[in-house]
């Protein structure tokens, strides 16, 4: 939007330009309460206490086997060396001396493998079920969240929480926890085994560089974390830019904005590239650096072991200080068992950080307040007459901004009530309250004299058929979409509904008829056709009360009139509410509520209101004459 040159832009300018995209993402960049989140993360495992116990047990056993094994490996090699010395002095190598050691070794390695298999097997079950449960929890949450939650969040954010965050958590849950756990066991175990061996200089050589590795890992991961965070922030900027440019594609093209947009995109990708490079490079260096430290260890152990070995042979070192060449191999194994876990943990520290951040976002969503539970499970679905009454209803979406105040009206059974008024007058809000998408702040709404708050939401909503401004259709065939409200409907009924909604001819003109698939957001049919399909869907449900909220705003008036004729037939004896800008739509209403700023300013029939020559008359006449009403 704003002009800029191609050169890299200063940090501050960049930050201020893209802060817009980040408005809602502040909390996401970093787990704020890492400890609390971690504890809660752990508490998720509670229901799986028994399998988890076995996971811990088997991983301990497997690590233990791995920790003990090098000792026997060492002694086997010592024996072999002796045997080779025998051979060198003319004897014959006798393997029987090693059998005992080899048997133990085989047993150790086999059980290590077996236990690690068990551990993987059980923990796979735990992690899959855990994530399955988490997904189900979030899904259930979605079903119970009040609509106000959806109004506050953008679709993209909610979807991203469910899709990306859960995946992120599930991806590293198992590997992170298990890696940390086995690493700790391995480090402690190797340390203990080295101490038991009693060779203090070798032990010291094996572990002296470990603090260095730990320090290096810590430092590097701190630096790389900063770059990773910058990377994710820029990724968010990129997302924001792309989303806007793709969604506003026609505008971008028509206003010749492609070059600007591409230039802007380049700026962000350059920056993303830089951040991504730094993050990957720094964290990528960690592994070679740790390997270097590790290899230093390796060499120093070889050297030290050699010194011991030669020293013993020369007699300069007492023979009991060192067992033989096999001990070098033992210590080499321990040294790698000691440092590998540290390398592994340092590698996954970033994963743990990011999965904790994701877990926190998931938890935040799970902690959102649910809709108020139904007061009763009273399922008397059959509303006989359909008389709707609003009595002294007050409501506001935002605390300090009253929207509807003391609203009262009655819709008689079988009548058509139209609601008109300028944008923001509260027309849709009335529908939201009636459907209990939102709950009133005060006052009562009744159907046939029953307070809707004493009914369950399901029972209440079962009485309504509703066509909304927002024409939501899902990816599936036209048939599936029309039958959405009543899946057991026969094809005859479906065709009747399609005919009533004036969409039948169109559907039949399509090569695949009712089996025509609709794409994402039903982008393959026109806005008006989408509205007609949603009307057919509502008609098929055959509701007691029909609500049309700007249902035909993109349909031409002729089609609309035909729909109305069909609808009038259908609506005989049923109550209906119609919200429309187009006043021709509502001329036939039994009662017209004229709303302005949350209050009903006029009420009556079309003729009556015209005669009264008030706000409605002004609105109505502006449609045809050149008379220009003043702004309000």
């Amino acid at each position, binding site marked *: 939007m704003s002009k800029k040159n191609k050169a890299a832009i200063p940090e501050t300018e960049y930050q201020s330009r893209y802060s817009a995209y980040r408005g809602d993402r502040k909390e996401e960049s970093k787990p704020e309460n890492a400890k609390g989140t971690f504890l809660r993360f752990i508490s998720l495992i509670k229901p799986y206490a028994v399998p988890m116990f076995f996971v811990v047990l088997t991983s301990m056993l497997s690590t233990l086997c791995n920790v003990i094994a090098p000792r026997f490996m060492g002694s086997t090699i010592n024996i072999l060396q002796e045997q080779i010395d025998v051979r060198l002095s003319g004897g014959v190598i006798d393997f029987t001396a090693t059998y005992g050691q080899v048997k133990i070794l085989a047993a150790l390695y086999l059980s290590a493998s077996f236990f690690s298999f068990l551990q993987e097997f059980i923990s796979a079950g735990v992690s899959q079920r855990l994530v399955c449960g988490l997904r189900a929890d979030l899904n259930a949450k979605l079903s119970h969240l009040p609509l106000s939650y959806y109004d506050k969040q953008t679709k993209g954010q909610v979807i991203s929480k469910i899709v990306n965050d859960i995946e992120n958590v599930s991806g590293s849950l198992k590997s992170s926890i298990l890696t940390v756990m086995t690493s700790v066991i391995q480090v402690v175990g190797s340390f203990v085994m080295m101490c038991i061996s009693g060779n203090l200089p070798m032990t010291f050589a094996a572990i002296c560089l470990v603090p260095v590795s730990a320090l290096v890992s810590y430092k590097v991961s701190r630096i790389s974390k900063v770059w990773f965070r910058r990377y994710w922030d820029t990724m968010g900027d990129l997302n924001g830019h792309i989303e806007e440019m793709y969604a506003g594609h026609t505008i971008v093209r028509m206003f010749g904005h492609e070059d600007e947009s591409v230039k802007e995109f380049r700026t962000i990708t350059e920056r993303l590239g830089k951040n991504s490079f730094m993050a*990957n490079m720094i964290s990528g260096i960690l592994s070679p650096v740790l390997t270097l430290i590790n290899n230093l260890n390796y060499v120093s152990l070889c050297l030290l072991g050699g010194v011991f070995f030669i020293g013993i042979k020369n007699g300069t070192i007492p023979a009991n200080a060192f067992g033989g060449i096999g001990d070098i191999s033992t210590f080499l194994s321990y040294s790698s068992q000691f440092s590998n876990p540290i390398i592994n943990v340092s590698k996954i520290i970033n994963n743990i950080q990011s999965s904790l951040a994701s877990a926190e976002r998931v938890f935040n969503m799970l902690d959102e307040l649910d809709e108020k539970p139904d007061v009763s499970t009273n399922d008397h679905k059959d509303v006989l007459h359909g008389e709707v009454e609003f009595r002294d209803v007050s409501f506001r979406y935002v605390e300090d901004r009253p929207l509807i105040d003391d609203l009262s009206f009655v819709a008689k059974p079988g009548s058509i009530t139209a609601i008109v008024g300028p944008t923001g007058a509260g027309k849709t809000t009335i529908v939201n309250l009636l459907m209990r998408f939102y709950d009133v702040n005060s006052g009562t709404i009744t159907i046939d004299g029953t307070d809707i708050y004493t009914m369950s939401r399901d029972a209440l909503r079962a009485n309504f058929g509703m066509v909304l401004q927002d024409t939501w259709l899902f990816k599936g065939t036209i048939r599936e979409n029309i039958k959405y409200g009543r899946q057991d409907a026969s094809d005859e009924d479906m065709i009747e509904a399609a005919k009533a909604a004036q969409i039948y001819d169109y559907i039949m003109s399509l090569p695949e008829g009712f089996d025509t698939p609709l794409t994402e957001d039903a982008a393959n049919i026109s806005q008006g056709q989408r509205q*007609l399909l949603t009307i057919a869907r509502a008609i098929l449900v055959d509701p007691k009360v029909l609500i049309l909220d700007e249902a035909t705003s993109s349909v*031409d008036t002729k089609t609309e009139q035909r729909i109305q004729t069909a609808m009038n037939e259908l609506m005989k004896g049923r109550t209906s509410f119609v919200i429309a800008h187009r006043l021709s739509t509502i001329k036939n209403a039994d009662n017209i509520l004229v709303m302005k700023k949350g209050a009903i300013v006029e009420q009556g029939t079309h003729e009556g209101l015209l005669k009264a020559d008030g706000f409605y008359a002004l609105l109505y006449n502006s449609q045809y004459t050149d008379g220009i009403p003043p702004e309000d």
Partner: protein
Amino acid sequence: MKKVLSMLGPHKVPLILSIFFATVNTVMQLFIPLYTSKIVDEGILGENMQRLLELCLVMLGFTVLSIITSIANTYFSTKTSVGYSITLRNYIFDKVSRLSQSDIDKIGVSSLVTRTTNDVRQVHDIVLSTLKSLIPIPIMLVGGLAMAFYMNPKLARLSLLSIPVLMVLAIIIIAIIVPMYSKVQKLVDKMNQIMREKISGIRVIRAFNKTQYEDNRFADTNLELTGLGLRAARIMACFIPVLTVLLYSLICVVIYLSVDAANYLDVETQYEQIRATLPNMFAFITFFGLIISAITSVVSILVSIPRAVISGKRIKAIMEAVSDIVLPENPVTPKEEDAGKLEFSNVSFKYKPRPAEKKKKFALKKKKTEEKPQKPFELKNISFASAPGETTAIIGITGSGKTTLCNLIPRLYDVTEGEIKIAGVNVKDLSPEEIGKRIAFIPQTAYLFSGTIRDNICFGKKDATDAEIWRALEIAQAKSFVDSLPDGLDSFVSQAGKNFSGGQKQRLSIARAIVKGAEIIVFDDSFSALDLATDARLRASLRENLSDVNIVIVAQRVGTVLNADRIIVLDNGEPVGMGTHRELLESCELYREIVVTQLSEEALEEVNGNE
């Protein structure tokens, strides 16, 4: 996938360097077992302190070299993969910017965004880990074997035994595990779609009491995914332990045979060889250790490949999307005196058949590939000409092609037959810049960008002054509400203009078009969210202030088109009437029907009476 990978082209140099250093690094690593064996052999067992020290230093040297090459590999592979993802993203974005709206709709905006961000990241990750971890593996195997043969051909032949084992494992991975993970990926996609629909349709779902149904639909997929994920994870759980056991057994056999071999050697003549038995063994054990850790990391990379392949396919679909619009090679500059003219001559249009057929290639049912019937014409034989200062209105029933007609003017689609001339030149011969300069377009759904109101209005004219902006806002009837905002023109507009009402958005998008000062302005039903009073005021002010502009206007309300110079009535894409309001009342049955549905009897009489 090949096409997606071909974008690696510009990054050949770092790519090759990265492979080079990976190779060098692997070779360096192979020297470590060799020198371990030498240290043990010549240094320790040879009881030669001097030699031991020397060899340790050489080994240290190799270690340092191997680290340096490893860092170089990291540097170049990161450079390659990052550069690659930038190239890929830029390519996609440029490509999408040039696509027509219908191409974008085919894929869907949300999917396009995911493809540009997440899918590219998947491909980036796999390129990075391939360069860092996958490429060294074959080198390690081949080099390791070569080294083994060099050290001890007899033992090396034994280690060839590991090859069939590795082959079997590779087959297991490719035949069982990879397909499993690609199935998992498909289920994840399905689940995302269910979630997406659930969130965007929340009101409808609740209104139809379908929460339970949606929950079941979700639960089914969730369970299926969990089951499959579990099976895949469990196969993987067997994989590593079995592999370890196999390789350890192999080590045992090698040790036994190599030590046993010493029994058949002659002590006198082959003394040295016997003595070297143990050092060689050391080298082999280290070598096998390298193989085990290499294979473990291969498995983890292979498992993530299906995901990257799916991402690659999605990216490829964008790369292969053919833009319907072919730009002119020699754009024509219109003559000055023709400015503002618009002419349709015999324009017909139908959508091109969707190239979705290709996808069905993999479907088992061959029946489906039967040729689809031809799509019907959306527009047929439209002809009219309009000059600056005139208003052309288009009216018609739903699906009659009004929006399509509008979209043809700025060449969002190409006509199938006939031609459209802007300023006397066929739109196909005009450069996109020229079209953009001459036409302002206001689509059905107003779309605003995040930023300030000023940013949004200036979209039309980058250097617009405040006075120009205010004038445009005033004409668009948006001045009073912008005035009442605390920050005025600098008020923040959130993404897609969410913080403004539908009517406000429409007025701002009209102002954006007005400020552009175009010769032709196309309003595609852009008053639908306005209440009638505002609609009337807006129309009056447009007529007053844009007297020299050629206006094309689509409307549902007869009131909006009443005073147009020319009203085109569309029915099923065909013009069934053209003329002024009064002419059409006389001559056009459909127009009369539309009018009757909107005007009260009295108003109708009034209109007729005026004649």
